[in-house]
């Protein structure tokens, strides 16, 4: 694992800038959420993945057809006739 470092200055209200090259390399975009963790004298910044990302593909082995949907609706409103 190669490690790069850069010096940045903290603004009066505590903001820092992440170098553009790093943002692009890590796919960080406007409004992405970052997770900050403090450990002794370090602050670790990680891109916070959306929980939904973890389950994309979860239903790939099945289908949900219009017929299934209608059957589910009948179950809701008519019971198991």
């Amino acid at each position, binding site marked *: 694992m190669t490690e790069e470092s850069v010096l940045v200055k903290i603004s009066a209200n505590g903001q820092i800038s992440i170098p553009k090259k790093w943002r692009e390399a890590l796919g960080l*975009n406007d*409004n*992405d*959420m970052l997770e900050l963790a403090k450990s002794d004298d370090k602050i670790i910044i990680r891109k916070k993945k*959306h*929980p*939904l*990302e*973890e*389950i*994309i*593909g*979860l*239903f*790939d082995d*099945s289908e*949900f057809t*219009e017929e*299934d*949907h209608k059957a*589910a*609706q009948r*179950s*809701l*409103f008519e019971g198991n006739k």
Partner: protein
Amino acid sequence: MNEKYVFDAIALFYLQKTSLPLGLKTVRDKILRRDATAIIPTIAVSELLWKKRREGEDAFKKFQNAYQVWKQSDNILVDPFDESILDEMVANETSSELHDEIIAMTCKKHGTNYVCSNDEKLLEFWNLQGIWD
């Protein structure tokens, strides 16, 4: 602006699929970037639950996993069919069917016209903007 999208059961199912219709994918990308909020009515969740339970134990466990993820997500809202939806329904003199009305009134409650669905009857009767492909 954070747009709100109400999901029907089939669109909710597709939210977990690797391959999905283009319009739904665009919405999912917005949700992943937290630029949009997904509103999933309890009636849609119940229908998918019904389907997954019928598919067997593995499928049901996957549904349970997905349900926990929806609940953990700050921009995915499981929206109850409760008095606030009834208040909207009571104002309607006519309706098509209860199921569609609940979905449409969920849109109204949240001030959005966007519904992730390809159900033409739902979209036309309630004059909603469908998101699909």
